[in-house]
């Protein structure tokens, strides 16, 4: 940001009103930082790993700004003012639409996302990098004291940055969202362009065309501001099919809740976890066949299942005095405790006084605690990776066995016996290898298809309930009887148990699902 060597001597008496100067610099600086923050926030939101995303975006942006201020010296002295106005319009336009554009891009085309992101950040950085040097040159040619100019410009440059850095996380991002924040700052840039244009209207060539252009960009951004909300929802619908009413990325997973009419769905890492229309089928089947036969059960452990829906079913049984829910992700259990709508789905189960919510890794928790339970419900994600496969292994079931009272029961969600038959029967074989007697069953959950469970006991002899003492929407005597019967096309397959040293289940699961054309 060095002063032009060949600057014309400032014409005496032509002093720019201070307030306009201050405001312009302040706004230009605010916008510059805002675009940088938007790009950083958006990429960490969409790509995860916020430290990496933020620091690489900031690095790219700062570098581009350096390029910009270098380029600014090639602007001819006579054109400085006009160029400044052009650049403001361009920054306003590109910066304004950046967030929405990236969002739409991410929803529909995953591949060029990073390239576009960094290209956009670079272009914006170059343009923003030219702004302040140009402002200085404009002012320098009109004002006497260079040192006073530099100090004043830089003061407001940094003040603007401070204002945005505080406003952005506290007000703008949470209240307006990234898209609308983008449009808002774009409009501010264009406003600077417009009033500079007006103030120097006698010195600017092709004033009329510039004014028209400015007005058009302003109108476009204002329109964007109005519809951006709709646009981003539309983009997320492209991702999930439905409108996203809540989304967050935690250190463990990406959680998204969508809603379409009266159907609320939870997606974790893009996989459907439940649909509010039929989740009662899944959760009734998961809980009641076991708990109905345990009138003496006092304590229940739920592993996974941070949505609280299984806990809701458990709580229907008055004999249960304590329910312990161990789920990895505090964001998940917080969401289903605090969010009014979602905690409505589980009937505020997670705030129930009988329930203790523990955010811990199930494996670690079981290893380091010694409590014993009358019923353990393992409601883990499907064994799609070696990491998740460990949760369905012989040692894991042995470990669970140590936490089970003498007549206690273990229920395991066991993926689909229809789509993934080898996986389902492998879980059954694994439980038997771990010393349990198994009682496999299945239920039809329309949004999932045919789904399977394994009920495991230490002693042989389990008889499915013929009546339920709690209100059920899906289960009755006849449904329950059929659940425990496997028709000829879903018979037990001869498969190996899931030992940790070979993790057969993970191979079965990957093969099973790759055979399913969906």
């Amino acid at each position, binding site marked *: 940001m060095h002063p032009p060597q060949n600057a014309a001597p400032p014409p005496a008496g032509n002093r720019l009103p201070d307030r306009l100067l201050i405001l312009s610099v302040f706004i230009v600086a605010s916008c510059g930082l805002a675009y940088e923050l938007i790009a950083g926030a958006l990429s960490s939101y969409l790509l995860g790993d916020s430290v*990496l995303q933020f620091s690489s975006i900031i690095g790219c942006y700062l570098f581009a700004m350096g390029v910009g201020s270098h380029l600014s010296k090639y602007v001819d002295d006579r054109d400085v003012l006009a160029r400044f106005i052009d650049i403001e319009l361009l920054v306003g336009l590109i910066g304004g639409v950046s967030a929405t554009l990236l969002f739409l891009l991410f929803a529909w085309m995953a591949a060029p996302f990073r390239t576009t992101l960094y290209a956009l950040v670079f272009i914006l950085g170059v343009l923003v990098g030219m702004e302040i040097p140009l402002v200085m040159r404009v002012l320098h040619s009109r004002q006497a004291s260079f040192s006073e100019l530099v100090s004043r410009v830089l003061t407001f440059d940094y003040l603007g940055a401070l204002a945005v850095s505080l406003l952005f996380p506290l007000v703008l991002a949470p209240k307006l969202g990234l898209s609308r924040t983008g449009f808002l700052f774009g409009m501010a840039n264009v406003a600077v362009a417009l009033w500079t244009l007006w103030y120097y209207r006698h010195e600017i060539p092709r004033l009329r065309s510039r004014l028209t252009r400015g007005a058009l960009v302003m109108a476009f951004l204002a329109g964007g501001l109005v519809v951006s909300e709709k646009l981003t929802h539309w983009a997320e619908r492209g991702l999930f099919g439905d409108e996203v009413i809540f989304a967050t990325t935690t*250190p*463990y997973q990406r959680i998204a809740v969508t809603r379409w009419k009266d159907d609320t769905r939870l997606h974790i890492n893009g996989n459907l976890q439940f649909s509010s229309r039929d989740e009662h089928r899944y959760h009734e089947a998961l809980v009641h066949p076991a708990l109905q036969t345990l009138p003496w059960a006092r304590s229940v452990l739920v592993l*996974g299942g941070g949505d609280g829906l299984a806990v809701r079913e458990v709580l229907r049984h008055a004999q249960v005095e304590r329910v312990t829910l161990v789920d*990895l992700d505090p964001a998940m259990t917080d969401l289903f405790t605090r969010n009014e709508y979602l905690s409505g789905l589980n009937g505020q189960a997670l705030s129930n006084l009988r329930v203790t919510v523990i955010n811990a*890794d*199930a*494996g*670690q928790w079981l*290893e380091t605690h010694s409590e014993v339970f009358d019923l353990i419900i393992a409601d*883990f994600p499907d064994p799609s*990776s*070696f*990491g*998740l*496969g*460990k*949760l369905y*292994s*012989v*040692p*894991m079931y042995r*470990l669970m066995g140590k936490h089970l009272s003498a007549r206690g029961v273990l229920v395991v969600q066991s993926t689909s016996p229809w789509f993934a038959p080898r996986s389902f029967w492998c879980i059954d074989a694994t439980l038997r290898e771990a010393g349990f007697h198994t009682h496999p069953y299945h239920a039809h959950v329309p949004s999932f298809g045919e789904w399977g469970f394994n009920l495991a006991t230490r002693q042989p002899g389990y008889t499915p309930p013929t009546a339920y003492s709690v209100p059920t929407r899906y289960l009755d005597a006849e449904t329950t009887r059929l659940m425990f019967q496997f028709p000829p096309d879903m018979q037990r397959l001869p498969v190996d148990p899931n*030992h*940790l*040293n*070979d*993790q057969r289940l*993970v191979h079965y699961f990957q093969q099973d699902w790759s055979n399913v054309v969906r």
Partner: protein
Amino acid sequence: MERRGFLRASGAAGLGLALPACRPLQGLGIPVRVHQPGLVEGHRLRDGTPLPTPTRELRTGVAILGSGVAGLTAAWRLARDGHDDFLLLDGPEPDGNAAGGRFDSPSGPLLHPCGAHYLPLPSMESRGVRALLFELGVIKAEPFSEHPRFSETALVHAPDERLFFDGAWHEGLLPTEQVNAEEAGQHRRFLAEMADLTRRRGRDGLRLFCVPKALSSVDAEWRQLDALPFRDWLVARGYSAPSLHTWLDYVCRDEYGAGPEHVSAWAGLHYFAGRGGHAANAADGTVLTWPEGLAFLTRGLRARVPTARQQAGHALQVDETREGVRILCQDAAGAFLVHARRAICAMPLHVAARVVPHLRDYGFDPARHLPAQAPWLVANFLLDGFPAEPPDAPLAWDNVIHGSPGLGWVVSTHQWLRAAKPAHTVFTAYRALAGQAPAEARRQLLTLTGDELLELAAVDLKQAYGAFELWRRTRAVHITVRGHGMAIPGCGSLTNPGLTALQAADGRLLFAHADLSGYSVFEEASWWGERAARLAANS
């Protein structure tokens, strides 16, 4: 000690590591701690530093000098058989080459190996090792049967190995699927030949190759292979496939600290044919491992030795007297004498050569009989999270880069039973400095800066993840430098008369160390420790 502190301190202590400090990584501020167990003590002995005057005396029946696998095994056997008149002298590095370490990561303590990290399924003949595994709960039932049942927490979890070959990761370490039919055919022929050798017995009825080595056949026809370099044997047998040679070069460096051109054919084959252990609940060739590596076993052994029988300090000189053995020792508090009826010399032979002035009387002339010893680096990287991996080739326990001078890395949290990847982990990278003569490599090691050591140790991780990703995630590094890491079983090692003499020694001094076998694995150290305990207890 943080890296800068280390460099200052090492300079001050004259450890030899050059001072001109850390260039490339200083800016990243990664704390690097370099540990050179036994270096100061060993070099003082070598340099003939005047011996101190003892101020205390201890008396015991059996003095065990050194607490590596051999010394610990001897102590465990004595304690188990009801003896309590013995003393285990730790030496400069308790647990020796099977020591472990730990990081206190933000998410809790993380254990890691500082040396040995896995144990193959033990052979039928490794009865002592089986008994130990049974006592530690690693073998669940029938420890001496053909197919014992092993604890699943110790059997390495899938995916166990992957190889970076031709720009991508593949399952397993031998790239049979990735090479042309001719090379793949050689791979298969080689493995079949090894499987056959595993079953073969010599004219004396003993297995041709056996761990422990002492129980191998002495059939002269096969012992000839001790005179031939392994590489020459391969060539003579028509094994020419470059991919096979690269793999075997890795195997030999990994097992013996030197390549197939330096290792005898007998040793090369012994690696493949010597074990043949089975498990009831795992495939042949599966290994046992723990987050802290074999420190799990040394910890288990040590826990079975009464603390009153354990003594800090190291031996400076061992003399035999009319009553028994007199050992001049030193610990932090000063010099002391230990009087014992007998002593088990469980220190490495290059140290024994200095500490036992009359070693020649036992038939071992250090000048002629000391095996070459390979220098090793073991580098533990404490990481924030896990570097990104391709979705179709997840991180395995052992990760190796085909043709690299490094030996890959193992993942200390691999055996954890967890729902999610832990927030922090430790990658343990291994490297045998096999590119040059061992003594030359050791001399160079002494001149390296901390950064240069780190460069050597990080070669594989940097290739796999890129420097940016690696240093971005690295919170701290512990490097263990083992200048005399292991004896190299070169040609003539099997018939080395000095080693044969020490193996048979049954005087006031007994010897127990992996060095006696001419190559270094847990089972060999354990074998000699057990033998020495048996003889010592009989007297």
